[in-house]
């Protein structure tokens, strides 16, 4: 009996020893050297793998930064402090760049936009866009099923009253929402611009008004109130703030926009349903 135990211990022990030596040998012999610098850079990057830089995730960007001389400021999601640490570690000056934030150019929340149908399909904007465009009547506005909010790796987009709104203090400007929105409503703009015309409709102004109470009707009031070309009418009839030379946010009050399409970023973010009482007025 004891021989059996002894033999078992010996055989298993010897097999383990042989395998251990084999692993050690192969690990030593066929080692692939990993650059410790790449590892360190990867740690300093945000690690969200958002893909905003155009590389396949943070590890790929770290490799590109170390081995191909890509500037660390290529990372769109990195905070200013982390970027400082990273450039100090690499010994390169980070390129100055303006913080960008995503803006949803639509103010048509559920209680402001007219409805044309009851949508019962897959609750995703992209599917709804294929199947007749969801419940809201406007063919250019936010569909409101939140595929941008789900795509955001940082949770910066909130669905309020059936409208996507961006929280700029959370948004890192990676641009994932921009690519995912089937209506192309989201654009990256400098975070310092705090006032926008929240409408992207290319319909005729009267048709826009018909389907949404918050539509820009291209009346030109804000353009005249500004008078310095800081608000511009675009080719397709929509009005946009000139992001390179933005007007003061007080324009939102002084312009007297009849539909409230011109509003501050803060007001757009705080959008809430209109109560039935207010609509009666």
């Amino acid at each position, binding site marked *: 009996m004891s021989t059996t135990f002894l033999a078992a211990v010996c055989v298993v022990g010897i*097999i383990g020893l042989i395998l251990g030596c*084999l692993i050690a040998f192969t690990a030593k012999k066929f080692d692939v050297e990993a650059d410790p610098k790449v590892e360190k850079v990867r740690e300093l990057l945000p690690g969200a793998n958002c893909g905003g830089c155009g590389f396949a995730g943070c590890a790929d960007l770290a490799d590109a930064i170390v081995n191909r001389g890509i500037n660390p400021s290529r990372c769109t999601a990195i905070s200013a402090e982390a970027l400082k640490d990273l450039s100090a570690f690499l010994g390169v000056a980070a390129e100055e760049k303006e913080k960008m934030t995503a803006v949803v150019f639509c103010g048509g929340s559920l209680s402001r936009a007219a409805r044309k149908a009851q949508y019962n399909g897959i609750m995703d904007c992209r599917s709804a866009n294929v199947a007749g465009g969801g419940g809201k009547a406007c063919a250019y506005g936010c569909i409101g099923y939140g595929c941008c909010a789900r795509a955001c790796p940082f949770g910066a987009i909130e669905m309020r009253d059936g409208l996507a709104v961006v929280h700029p203090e959370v948004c890192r400007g990676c641009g994932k929402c921009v690519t995912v929105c089937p209506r192309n409503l989201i654009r990256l703009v400098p975070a310092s611009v705090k006032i926008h015309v929240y409408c992207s409709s290319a319909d005729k102004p009267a048709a826009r008004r018909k389907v949404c109470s918050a539509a820009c009707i291209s009346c030109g009031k804000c353009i005249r109130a500004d008078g310095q070309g800081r608000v511009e009418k675009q080719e397709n009839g929509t009005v946009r703030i000139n992001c390179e030379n933005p007007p003061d946010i007080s324009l939102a009050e002084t312009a007297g926009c009849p539909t409230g399409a011109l509003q501050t970023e803060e007001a757009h973010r705080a959008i809430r349903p209109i109560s039935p009482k207010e609509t009666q007025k």
Partner: protein
Amino acid sequence: MPSNEWLLITVGAILVNNVVLSRILGICPFLGVSKKLETALGMSGAVTFVLTISSFVTALLYKLLLSAEITICGTTVNLSFTKFLVFIVVIASLVQIIEILLRKFSPSLYRALGIYLPLITTNCAVLGAAELNAGANNGLGRGILESTVFGFATGLGFGLALLLFACLRERLELSMIPRPFRGTAIALVTAGILAMAFMGFGLLVK
């Protein structure tokens, strides 16, 4: 060995006694990496690869060393009771070595399979196939070539179940599911129904 024996081993391992859906082995990767078809494909490739090689090595060890009667100092010793211990150690080290070699010699294959290989180290489907090979023919074990074929077929069976399940889960992702059932709950229910469907294959072989 007659040719229909080979067919029996292959069809038996893929359909009738599917490693996941009939033997309930390898459930961890089955639930873990079945969210996307692409990752499921990588995982099934890696599992088939490891299963084939590990079946060969474990069958070799079992045949030559563990199931053989060894005579030491006049006493005959049969070490087949240590098979689990030996198989675990062998499979774990084998996966490690394969990973190191792949990384060195085939970076493209390493990129495709690499992240799944460490997961397979402790995959019970791999150990299960080794044990089934050893336990066949009343504990005498299958032949080495038959074991390798069985391992490969088991891998294919695992891949089939995983890919079917991944397709189902991709569809489920966009379906309207009652809130409490979303995620793992509906995945487990689906796996159960899939397993029941595979029971139908039981009639293929008497």
